[in-house]
């Protein structure tokens, strides 16, 4: 049995699975249920000046029958009175002292307001603070949330205000609604934040109702941009996370990974790319808190299989494998191979290659089943056929190097080697 216990800035939790600051963490009832289910920690839904929410707050993207592949919300920060939130946070800490309790904050735009809020939260016994510089809707119009996160100077200033007052660890949450998360990440680190978390939600319109012509979610004939999350955003989150993990300034602080984490596999991927733990929201909003059972179990089994004893054994392990395109090995060449015993003759590889790639698959007519085979000389090894194939390991990519030595693009050009073999 591997050891899944996590230590994030000294905040300990029995596993690296936290619930992100969001509706599932906005009150004691939910949080206690989450802890009972086994979640390692929570980031309490953002506190600040109490707000009022509209009805009709969520919308989703469905893809080929999969519900909530992407998810979107137009909720603001906590709409409950601050004193109730604080009392409930203290109660949760008391009842589950072994779980991480981090509180998300978004104070009004002044040093005093931040200091006041931090003092009140620290009194609850919470273990850490997360600064919400990411909320993409509603709060930005008030000069808060993403409006802070999108401007490195302002972000740095607010982090400095916080660090003057805070006595517990501080995590700064970054917005993805920027061309790069690195400038704000750097500014926050320079301002003194102990850690970063990313990504917050991405501004979005999930779709337009074809009968009312109003985008979703529908609010009395109107809609607004919402914050996009769920499995659809995971690849974007992983990329942004990696830029933070590779930057010489931000690489020095731990990162909490957020964005479409639904399974232990997703969590492992975030951690391989530098996250010390992960935060989950959409997946529990779809399935409930019970999904943590397989997250714990699956990660445990995987770690045992790989021989990892603690989380630190694999956190960040994949970060160095992301390189620059110019450094890729041009002599690496792969060619598709179809296992005819596994082939079910659906023709998806053929039509994908024929219509949109390199015409590298031949069709031999059969009734009713055609036979498909690879034209090895034509195949550039793009992976498309393997990706569309519905049968596991029916199409494999076989290495057929163009040369033994490592050869990158810069060297290729320097030697004046011939371009375009296709």
């Amino acid at each position, binding site marked *: 049995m591997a050891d899944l216990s996590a230590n994030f800035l000294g905040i300990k939790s029995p596993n690296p699975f936290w619930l992100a600051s969001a509706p599932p963490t906005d009150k004691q009832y939910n949080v206690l249920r989450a802890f009972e289910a086994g979640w390692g920690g929570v980031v309490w839904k953002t506190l600040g000046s109490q707000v009022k929410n509209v009805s009709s707050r969520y919308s989703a993207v469905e893809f*080929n*029958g999969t519900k909530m592949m992407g998810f979107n919300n137009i909720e603001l920060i906590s709409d409950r009175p601050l004193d109730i939130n604080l009392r409930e946070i203290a109660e949760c800490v008391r009842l589950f002292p072994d779980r991480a309790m981090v509180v998300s904050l978004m104070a009004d735009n002044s040093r005093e307001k931040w200091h006041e809020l931090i003092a009140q939260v620290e009194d609850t016994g919470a273990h850490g603070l997360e600064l919400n510089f990411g909320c993409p809707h509603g709060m930005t119009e008030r000069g808060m949330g993403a409006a802070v996160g999108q401007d490195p100077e302002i972000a740095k200033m607010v982090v400095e205000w916080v660090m003057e007052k805070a006595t517990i660890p501080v995590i700064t949450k970054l917005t993805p609604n920027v061309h790069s998360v690195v400038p704000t990440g750097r500014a926050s680190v320079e301002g003194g934040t102990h850690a970063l978390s990313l990504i917050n939600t991405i501004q979005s319109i999930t779709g337009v109702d074809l009968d009312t012509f109003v985008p979703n979610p529908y609010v009395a004939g109107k809609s607004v941009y919402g914050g996009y999350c769920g499995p659809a955003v995971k690849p974007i989150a992983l990329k942004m996370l990696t830029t933070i993990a590779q930057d010489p300034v931000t690489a020095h602080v731990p990162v909490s990974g957020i964005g479409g984490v639904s399974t232990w596999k997703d969590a492992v991927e975030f951690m391989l790319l530098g996250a010390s733990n992960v935060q989950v929201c959409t997946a529990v909003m779809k399935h409930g808190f019970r999904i943590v059972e397989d997250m714990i179990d699956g990660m445990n089994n995987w770690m045992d299989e790989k021989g990892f004893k603690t989380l630190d054994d694999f956190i960040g392990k994949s970060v160095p494998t992301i390189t620059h395109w110019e450094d890729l090995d041009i002599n690496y060449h792969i060619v598709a191979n179809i296992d005819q015993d596994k082939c*079910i*003759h*659906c*023709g*998806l590889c*053929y*039509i994908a290659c024929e219509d949109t790639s390199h015409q590298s698959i031949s*069709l031999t007519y059969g*009734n*009713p*089943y*055609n036979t498909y085979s690879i034209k090895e000389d034509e195949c550039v090894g793009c992976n498309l056929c393997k990706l569309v194939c*519905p*049968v596991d390991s029916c199409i494999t990519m076989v290495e057929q190097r163009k040369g033994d030595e490592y050869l990158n693009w810069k060297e290729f050009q320097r030697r004046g080697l011939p371009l375009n073999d296709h």
Partner: protein
Amino acid sequence: MSILNNRLTNEQYEQNFSDIHPPFDSREAALVEANRCLFCYDAPCTKSCPTSIDVPKFIKQITTDNVKGSAFTILDANIMGGGCSKVCPVEKLCEGSCVFNLMDEPPIPIAKLQRYSTEKAIANKWPLFQRKPSVGRKVAVVGAGPAGLSCAHALSREGVDVTIYEKESKGGGLMTYGIAAYKVTPEFCEEEVEFITSLGGIDIIYGQELGRTISLPELQASYDAVYLGIGVGVARQLDIPGEELTGVEDAIRFIYDIRELGYPSVPVGDKVAVIGLGMTAIDAATQAKRLGASEVTIVYRRTQAEMPSTEVELNLAKLDGCNLIWLASPKEIKGENGRVTQLICNVMELGVPDTSGRRSPVETGKTITLDVDMVIKAAGQVPYEALVNTNQLTHWNGKVAIDSYCTTNIPGVFAGGDCVNGGKEVVDAVQAGKDGAKAILNFIQSE
């Protein structure tokens, strides 16, 4: 033992003859299955459909909520795509070749999805097709069965005025009169014919029989072309002693009566033997049971490996509690007071393959005797040989001979469907009608 009608209560009849093809309960249920479809290229399902319905396309259209487009894709290839989705032996056609079978996964329920789209089209009377302006040509179609209706629809779409002469009082042919009522209800058959003729330009005149009320020369004189879709006739004779006894029935007649007279009116025995093991035999056996027969035994002279019925069909009979006797061939029907009491069968064994490639049954010299009061003959149907002969049509054992342009030996007279092939699936007849229409259009345009 006796042959009686009115054996069951109305509720029992209702239950026994309700549609065995329940529709998807909801759009979501249909989408679960539609979304499983891989959208194969040059799809094996399409290649296995005699009318070449673009199956991946119509299923994809269901997933995009383009049900109207989906129905058009189906019905454009097969105007009886609604009925075919209920009666096609899909296990040996589209669904049988679904690539999921090769993964040992259940195939896509193509027929059920096809019902989803076509039932909406037919129930809502969607005007999916538009007639071209009349081209001033007239074609007579004999027989409002699948071949005739398909031919008429294809011709009318091209602006040809079609008159169909039908001997029965309803259209649909064997779809309406020759298939178990629980597979396709009489109500649906009527709606389907109405849907087809709603295109316009198709006039069906009922109660008109070739050789009795109308003649081929008359039709030739009044129309630019004639299409014969007259189907096949009564069940093949057994040619054994006792065949004239009361209680010996023709399966086609039996099935016809069930649909035409209503369930309580049709008499059925206590103990029924059904001869043969094609689709018609299954339909007769299961319906005899569903009418209240206490014991139904299907007698077949070969083994399961040679049977014309599909396994799915055979299972229907088994689930209905029908008995099966393999390798038994009727030898004699015995009776008392002119009524059937026993069926005596030769016990057979399999010998060398015959012209169909199946091993021929050979008598062993042993016999078995079944106590029965009703014998239903379902050992194939016989073409209208006399009718074909009288009209000087070239034929093979009564099956009308046509060339590759669906043309008979008489110029301007075309034929297709069961009267040509001797009896195949509805879907084959629909394709024959399409082919016939194409040939007729060429013919009248080149005139």
